[in-house]
């Protein structure tokens, strides 16, 4: 009565062939991105060795300069894994810088009080968007586009001009360094890495994380399997709002000012990092570790162009565009192979 009747020669055999396994492996895109990062780093080493590119600090600066992007991209990874999209990230970051600067500078509140307030506002904004997406069954693209305009507009309600922060506790926090051998990391970079580790744990070792993957794989099935799909979706956007606000705080520390135009379009960088990191835009497949490499690749492009010296900064955008295009094409061929 046991059933081992399937012939292994058939194309739909039970044990996928070796090649199909490698090509269909969901970890492959992450490895490709990690490989790309290593190649780019090696190119940098060989070209700019005499200009100090080999120093550990140059490497660690990738984390320091992109800490806020990493946090925002981690939030975006949750949303994209669930099959959605969040366009409000940049605006929430901009709003958080204004909100923080205004409370600290104009209202004189201590930064330790302002931080939880800013995080709560971001998370609440994300919750609202998730609530609307879920309960009114509206496309996330539209709802978060509304969020994008809303938060950017709220920046201008606070002030039309930029507010620089002179508060001593903020600047000491911004300048704090955690030394690592001969080099150092900023507090922002540490926070970003902690967020990354927490996200990895949540996605792979909690029921909530697995529900995010399930919804991204097939939302209708997730519902019929009895999973609380609505609550999970709202939680995902809440999480993204929280991460955006946290990214906004890191950005405030990094720039030490609030400005209504801060982080305009940063959501697109975050989405680009997620996609380059191998997460499928259709949801359900990807790793937050890939997002780390996506952010590092984007950061490395910036540093390489700085080291080159003669290139204008908009070459960063061009390189990002080319990479994004290439990675989406790779995804496309991989998913079609998986289906075949």
């Amino acid at each position, binding site marked *: *009565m*046991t*059933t*081992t*009747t*399937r012939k292994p020669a058939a194309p*739909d055999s*039970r*044990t*996928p062939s070796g090649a*199909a*396994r490698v090509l*269909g492996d*969901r970890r492959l895109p992450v490895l490709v991105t990690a490989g790309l990062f290593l190649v780019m780093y090696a190119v940098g080493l060989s070209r700019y060795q005499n200009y100090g590119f080999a120093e550990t600090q140059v490497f660690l600066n990738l984390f320091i300069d992109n800490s806020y992007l990493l946090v925002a991209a981690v939030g975006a990874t949750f949303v994209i894994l669930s099959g959605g999209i969040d366009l409000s990230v940049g605006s929430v970051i901009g709003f958080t810088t204004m909100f923080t600067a205004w409370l600290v500078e104009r209202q004189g509140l201590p930064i330790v009080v302002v931080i939880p307030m800013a995080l709560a506002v971001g998370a609440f904004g994300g919750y609202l968007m998730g609530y609307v997406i879920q309960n009114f069954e509206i496309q996330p693209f539209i709802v978060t586009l509304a969020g994008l305009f809303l938060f950017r507009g709220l920046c201008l309600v606070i002030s039309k001009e930029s507010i620089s922060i002179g508060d001593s506790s903020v600047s000491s926090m911004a300048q704090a360094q955690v030394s690592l051998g001969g080099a150092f990391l900023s507090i922002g970079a540490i926070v970003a890495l902690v967020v990354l580790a927490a996200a990895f744990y949540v996605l*792979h*070792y*909690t*029921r909530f994380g*697995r*529900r995010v*993957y*399930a919804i*991204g*794989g*097939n939302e*209708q*099935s*997730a519902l*019929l*399997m*009895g*999973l609380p799909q609505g609550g999970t979706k709202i939680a995902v956007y809440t999480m993204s709002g929280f991460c955006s606000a946290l990214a906004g705080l890191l950005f405030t520390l990094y720039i030490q000012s609030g400005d209504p135009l801060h982080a305009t379009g940063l959501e697109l960088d975050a989405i680009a990092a997620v996609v380059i990191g191998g997460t499928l835009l259709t949801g*359900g*497949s990807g790793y937050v570790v890939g997002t780390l490499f996506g952010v590092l690749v984007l950061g490395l492009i910036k540093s390489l162009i700085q080291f080159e010296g003669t290139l204008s900064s908009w070459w960063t955008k061009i390189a990002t565009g080319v990479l994004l295009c290439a990675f989406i094409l790779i995804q496309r061929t991989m998913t079609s192979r*998986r*289906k075949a």
Partner: protein
Amino acid sequence: MAEPLPVLEMTGIVKEFPGVRALSGVDFRLFPGEIHALLGENGAGKSTLIKVLTGVYSLDGGTVTLNGASVRFTSPSGAQQAGISTVYQEVNLCPNLSVAENIFIGREPTRFGRIQWKRLRREAAELVDRLGLDIDVTAPLSSYPLAVQQLVAIVRAVGTGDSDGSGSGTKVLILDEPTSSLDRDEVLELFALMRRLKGEGVAILFVSHFLDQIYEVCDRMTVLRNGTLVGEHMVRDLDQVGLVQLMIGKALDQLEELHDHQLHADVGESLLTADGVGRTGGIAPFDLEIKKGEVVGLAGLLGSGRTELARLLFGADQPDSGKVTIGGKQVSMSAPNDAIAAGVAYCSENRRTEGLVPDLTVRENIILALQAARGWVRPVPAAQRDELVAQYIKALDIRPANPEARVGQLSGGNQQKVLLARWLITRPKLLILDEPTRGIDIGAKAEIQKLVVSLSEEGMSVLYIAAELEEVLRLSHTIGVLRDRRLVARLANGPEITPTRILETIASGEHQ
């Protein structure tokens, strides 16, 4: 079999939708350790009864008792927790997750909120093993064919009942048309699993359109017609003819008529010839001739290239070799438009996803192809349109006979008829029917087959694809046999051609 109390008893079930009484006073019993078929034509109320039982619909009257206690479910998860699990026709699992995760998601073993992956994989492997299946639980679900995914869905359903911790397990397993897209070997595998579960005392409710399968695996059956209970019988006490009569509520004249029907002989000159037409990855180059008024049937296993062949002749996929000639003129087949212009119509096997627009009315769906053929600047005059639609609704007996009804609300058989009407209205020279009778009830099946016969008598050529060999044999003048994406034989139908002969041809295809 000693009969203890039924595990599930539904009495006097009533369910009403606005304007329709879907179930009126239906009784239904299910005993532990039996496989129970729920039968009826499309629209008889099978799905409604299942949805009432699983808590998708609320009850308007009647009682449900489970193990002697009265219950009332308000959501699918409530029914699941009580030990009633359902596996639907479409596989409702997440293809991106591993098999083990699909079995356990929502009730993963955790320790302080952390998922214990090792334990999860081990328990999944044990469960799969216990049910006599050979599946690597660590592989992603998408790496398995549909049939295995269906088995995984059953494993999940069986496992879900264990979650209450009482160890009682799943008591009732509902399988809603699980076999409709499986081939023969896969069906046997499914049946083996069903029998094993039955041996463990699970009560299985099995819905299928294939009567042979009912007779193969079921112990007892309940027949519904128009929302009322017609009868409950032991399978061994009722033969197929009697069952069909119960289901459709009338004698079998129409079916008998078809059995006695002689293929008409006046097949005309050649209409379509395909010379070495093929497509890499689709189907190997083939030659095929279809004459005027001829019915050409395609036989072969699921995935043998039947649909691929049809799509090439319609230009839905572009052939990369060979040429197609229709009515003496070569047709480029670079897009369906070329084929439509040459008089070819194609009814897809996926009527829901590739054919009909569920939110439009019957009238709009029927008129779609004719309007497309005329171009958007020349609308079909309203009077002519209404007349045509009324004529085809009548001719094909589409129910309800209301041109304003939304197609999505029609039963499967009637949707198929709407799709047919759409193409017939354009008066094609060649009609390609890909599995026109899949998933529809026996009455509608007979009507569609009769229609094919009368169309061919009127001089229309038909390319007919069906999974059931008897169906192909009954209707076709010529039978094309496919195997492993290759047209291996063309047989002229005659008394010596039997299902066995075709099966032998499929089996020995390489030597032809």
